[in-house]
């Protein structure tokens, strides 16, 4: 594997941005976009969000609005036509989104030369493209760790991320009464989808508890092995609903300048303390992102 530089990452995400701009009216498929950038679909959305500062969905929506604004400022196209082209079914919904983005009504921007969007990134502005990958917001400690494969008991959750607590409850109660909470097992969460991109009711998440060879499944609780190998590990301190911010920093700021690539396997979280007896602000979670192995001679500098 060749080591990837910050410029490589920028180029690859740049290709995706270009692809989106040129296909603004086509449905955006995650697999297609990930392939354009040569990233694993497991991680593409998080790298995108981390580097661009918004999700693919938000990005597409904003670009369509900005294109609409450009069309309106240029001339006499009816607002409803512009609205339909931007993907809105009604004048009212379009007007609401438009006002939220630009602070003025669609009709008010006719003849205006320039409209400022709060994001600072503009439609058709490939030349002035800026990434959010600049280091910002305090120190970020990321460790590269070699992890052993982990055998885990797991229970699948499909639904909103903030409801995984119920699945955890079921897993811990069932496993607990059978004595599997002895010996201080680790608690892992494997997130198969990005809570900010996938519709809430479709998010797949596995609540996992490390077990030994003796565990063979228990009712709805299955067994799987979490792959070992190199992981980039960053400790997130604070409530679980702010984990997304740490993922963005890890994938958008650390990864592009790490010289490393992510492996085609899901990232996971290790919960280091007990949410039942810990203040949300003191919760600690290790975010573990699987890295591709380096070839000999490419070890850490």
């Amino acid at each position: 594997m060749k080591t990837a530089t910050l410029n490589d990452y920028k180029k690859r995400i740049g290709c995706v941005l270009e692809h989106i701009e040129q296909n603004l009216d086509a449905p955006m498929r995650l697999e297609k976009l990930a392939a354009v950038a040569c990233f694993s679909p497991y991680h593409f959305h998080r790298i995108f969000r981390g580097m661009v500062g918004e999700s693919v969905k938000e990005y597409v929506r904003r670009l369509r609005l900005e294109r609409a604004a450009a069309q309106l400022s240029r001339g006499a196209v009816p607002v409803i036509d512009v609205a339909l082209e931007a993907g809105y079914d009604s004048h009212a919904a379009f007007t609401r989104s438009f006002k939220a983005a630009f602070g003025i009504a669609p009709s008010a921007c006719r003849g205006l030369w320039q409209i400022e969007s709060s994001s600072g990134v503009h439609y058709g502005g490939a030349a002035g493209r800026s990434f959010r990958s600049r280091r910002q917001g305090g120190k970020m400690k990321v460790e590269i760790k070699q992890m052993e494969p982990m055998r885990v008991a797991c229970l699948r959750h499909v639904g909103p991320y903030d409801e995984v607590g119920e699945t955890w409850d079921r897993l811990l109660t069932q496993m607990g009464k059978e004595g599997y909470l002895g010996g201080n097992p680790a608690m892992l969460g494997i997130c198969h989808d990005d809570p900010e991109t996938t519709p809430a009711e479709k998010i797949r998440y596995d609540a996992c508890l490390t077990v030994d060879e003796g565990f063979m499944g228990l009712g709805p609780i299955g067994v799987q092995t979490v792959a070992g190998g190199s992981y980039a590990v960053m400790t997130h301190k604070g409530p679980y609903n702010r984990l997304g911010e740490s993922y963005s920093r890890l994938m958008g700021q650390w990864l592009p300048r790490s010289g490393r690539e992510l492996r085609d396997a899901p990232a996971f979280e290790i919960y280091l303390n007990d949410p039942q007896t810990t203040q949300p602000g003191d919760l600690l979670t290790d975010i573990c992102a699987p890295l591709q192995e380096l070839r000999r001679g490419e070890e850490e500098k």
Partner: protein
Amino acid sequence: MTTAAEKLDLYKEHKKEYAATKKPTMVEIKPAVYLGIEGRGGPDGEAFSEAIGALYGMAFTIKMTRKFAGKGDYAVCKLEALWPEIANMEKEKWPWELLIRTPEFIEAKDLEQAAAVLTKRGKGTGVERVRLRRLEEGVCVQALHVGAYDEEPRTIAQMQELSAQRGYEPAGAHHEIYLNDPRRIAPERLKTILRQPVKKRR
């Protein structure tokens, strides 16, 4: 009060007993039930961590067994410890009793059942030594110690000063409640409630 649907939290239920401040105060502690395990050795030794493992294993197994059976839910409390007199004693011989406060409805047969299931899973080391324990501490002097465990003597001296002023002397084992995990928190930020039962000096 807790409703049936709400989870029982003994620390919240007895808020006044856990509202320690850096400045020592006198408090009245009501009788309380714990899971306890006794042993000897330094807190960095193997016996100590093995006892912690056995105690937590039992605490969570008992809780989850009751919860699964629909007998209600409660939060597993934090680790506590009793340290009887250890002055002039080598660290390897320090006696201690580790505790986790537990609801009063927990019975000896809950412990037996949990010990059996943990043993069946090969996680039974030390679990047979965990027993139910009732403490009646009564009047205590109590303070919140913030910092490394090694620096406790500073806070203990202030506690002794207050109880002496009020005409009390120690009566029972020094009690510590560990509010956070020393593996995760820098020593200078560790919070520990120190509690010393006292009686009126005659």
